[in-house]
């Protein structure tokens, strides 16, 4: 760079902030500190982090390292003042670096292309020369059409008997790098909008319950301005395994006492209302509710008559079309029969809901047993009728991530423009070429000089293609 030494403080600060060296130092600092953040559990249990440090550095060093990293904010480093500071410095550097270089690039983009002296053409890295039969006045048309075919809109001037062509393409591709840099800024601005005007929270909503707030952080309640109700929650499993295939919540949005919207959500398929989005995230059993739910059974008689009943634990119901009375004795959310034939609950999730029912008919107890929701073969009763276990409702909660982020569209816009900028920066180039047609005795000499700011080899191939067109045209013409 040819620039005079700047001595004012403002200039020095500008030079410091626009230096690539600073960018490299920031890259390195962000990367290195981030590594620590991936090793220590962020916002995690202090004891776990102490354990991790002990495993890595031994019992002796761990407590000291723990205190040091806690003091420096490494336990929640991505939100610490110094990491935020690094990100701010990064964006300032990005802006100033770009602004510092923009005028020069802008000039290159807007510099009009014009004729060059013949000897300059030979100095280009890509330089070719051929001789073609015919006077320049005829050869010039061949050259012009070859350039058109290569999609170059060339300017032309006559210099005595010679002709000069000049053309350029993709001059705006030089701006790709700026688009990329400013996109990063747009993304960071979008992130800031989200932090400032949005919130992230969670909500564990039991089936049948209504809520108008989510919990953000440890105990901050964020109101929605409307209510959300969980009508139902269900998990589907893969075959007989306990691996969930899909979990789904049926939600209803209620505003001013009126039901506005109903939608079932699953992972990757959220619900959005008034800028607030509800994501299916987890599920579980509401503590202390195992005995409180409502069963949904379909009882079907031998001749196919079906009735739905909704008893609770300990209650009795009639099996439709029979004189059978069924009494619900016991319930297990995850039933397993061990090798001794004892029933046991193996999980604290509704992995394999089962209900123990005692059937009676006129004071006698002909049969009793476990009926499992996930195993239809247990629904069949010995007398030919069936009790279908449809649901045990009101026991599970659905775990929802709740988010409001007005900045997300800014972030998405930044992502799109960044992709565009990268594509332009890496896959397009500014190509310029000059062609001189010089008269000789009975022939014309064609001299080509060309330059590209990127991917020179590809441009070289293109030039050779133009040359081969010229060669062929000439043969065809004669």
């Amino acid at each position: 760079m040819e620039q005079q030494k700047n001595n004012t403080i403002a200039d020095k600060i500008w030079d410091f902030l626009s230096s690539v060296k600073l960018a490299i130092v920031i890259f390195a600092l962000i990367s290195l500190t981030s590594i620590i953040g991936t090793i220590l559990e962020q916002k995690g249990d202090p004891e776990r982090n102490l354990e991790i440090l002990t495993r890595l550095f031994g019992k002796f060093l761990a407590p000291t390292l723990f205190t040091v990293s806690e003091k420096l904010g490494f336990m929640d480093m991505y939100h610490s003042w110094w990491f935020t500071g690094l990100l701010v410095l990064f964006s300032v550097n990005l802006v100033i670096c770009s602004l510092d270089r923009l005028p020069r690039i802008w000039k290159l983009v807007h510099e009009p292309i014009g004729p060059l002296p013949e000897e300059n053409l030979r100095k280009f890295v890509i330089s070719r020369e051929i001789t073609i039969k015919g006077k320049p006045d005829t050869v010039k048309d061949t050259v012009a059409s070859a350039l058109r075919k290569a999609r170059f809109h060339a300017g032309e001037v006559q210099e005595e008997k010679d002709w000069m062509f000049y053309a350029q393409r993709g001059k705006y591709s030089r701006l790709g790098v700026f688009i990329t840099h400013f996109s990063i800024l747009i993304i960071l601005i979008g992130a800031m909008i989200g932090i400032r005007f949005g919130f992230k929270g969670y909500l564990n909503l039991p089936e049948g319950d209504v809520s108008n707030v989510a919990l953000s952080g440890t105990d901050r309640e964020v109101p929605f301005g409307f209510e959300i109700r969980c009508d139902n929650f269900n998990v589907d499993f893969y075959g007989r395994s306990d691996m969930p295939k899909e979990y789904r919540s049926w939600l209803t949005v209620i505003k001013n006492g009126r039901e506005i919207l109903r939608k079932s959500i699953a992972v990757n398929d959220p619900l959005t209302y008034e800028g607030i989005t509800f994501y299916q995230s987890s599920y579980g059993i509401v503590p202390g509710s195992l005995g409180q739910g409502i069963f949904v059974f379909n009882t079907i008689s031998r001749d196919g008559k079906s009735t739905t009943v909704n008893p609770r634990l300990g209650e009795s119901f009639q099996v439709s079309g029979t004189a059978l009375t069924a009494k619900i004795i016991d319930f297990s959310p995850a039933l397993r029969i061990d090798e001794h034939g004892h029933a046991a609950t193996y999980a604290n999730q509704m992995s394999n809901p089962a209900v123990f029912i005692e059937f009676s008919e006129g004071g006698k107890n002909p049969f009793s047993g476990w009926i499992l929701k996930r195993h239809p073969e247990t629904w069949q009763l010995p007398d030919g009728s069936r009790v279908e276990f449809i649901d045990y409702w009101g026991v599970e909660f659905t775990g929802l991530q709740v988010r409001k982020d007005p900045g997300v569209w800014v972030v998405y816009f930044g992502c799109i423009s960044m992709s565009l900028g990268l594509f332009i920066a890496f896959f397009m180039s500014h190509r310029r070429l000059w062609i001189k047609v010089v008269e000789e005795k009975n022939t014309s000499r064609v001299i080509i000089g060309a330059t590209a700011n990127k991917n020179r080899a590809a441009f070289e191939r293109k030039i050779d293609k133009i040359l081969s067109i010229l060669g062929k045209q000439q043969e065809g013409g004669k």
Partner: protein
Amino acid sequence: MDSSLFFGLSTMAYISAMMVYFTYVAFKKSQIGVIATGITIIGFISQTFAIIMRWKEFADLSGMGFLRSAPLTNLYESMVFFVWCLILGYLIIEFKFKNRSFGAFITPIAGLALAFIDLTGVSKEIQPLVPALKSNWLLAHVTMSFIAYAAFSMSFSTGLMYLITTTEKRSESAYIFWTITLGLFAVLLVSMGIDFFTFKVKVRPEIFIHSYLFRTSFLHSSSVINIISYVLAIAALVLVWRYGYILRTVITKFNVTPDMLDEITYRSIAVGFPIFTLGGLIFGAIWADQAWGVYWSWDPKETWSLITWFIYAFYLHSRMIRGWKGKKVAIVAVMGFMAVIFTYLGVNLLLSGLHAYGSR
């Protein structure tokens, strides 16, 4: 007939192609080179077949439709796809630069990666998808990430070759860098190999790393063996450092100029970087946003891909603006790929040993 037959065929093809490429480099007979390329192409075609078949098997089994059933959902499948991209990239380079010698560098990576999956207990079963993975973003995000990884691994090989061919003195820092890098890779592979043959276990890689890795050497219960292992490891590093020049004489036989290596390193990164940004970071963020409502949460996988991104951004800037060429940027390219390996394998395998990642 099922996909595993063709997967086996492609593994064998790559390993035999590796040997033929070695012979080619040694004897420089162009017929041998043609045979090597032919075998590689056969391996590539059968691997393509295998991937398509597995895709179809998965779609039939899951009933989720073709687009969502891309076989890219676990370590085994992603490794297979990585090898596929790598071979494709290599074949393109062989065609463009009319040079077969790289084959001797690339086919071993392909063959070893596939053999590694066979040796370890990485599950090859078609596994059902957890709900979070059921998304149309899976296909776009994972394919583009791995295309970028393959491009980066190409730049790693050429960058390393560049360092090997251009460093002369043992005191040079670039020489020390590549010998130590290569030496560490060798030490790690050998000690892991000893673990495998001692314990003869086939378990999930997470469990292997957690309870078996280095238990025959650095982490053996006897401190004598510990010390011997460390001494041997250091001896190995010194040995590679001392005799590294032998590799240089081998690679100079490849008929590649340092300029060409530098050019391929740069071009691979110039292709890999935008693809990684779009497919890896941006698509990953959009997907996370759809699934969990956070487009960026600084979890280890995200953070490590950002670190990788920074390293390659550093490479590009130092080359374009500072005009760095040659050894300095080659070192950056090599380090970038180490970050890639850590993002791909290290985060899942090592950090998950520290804390349970992926449980959400």
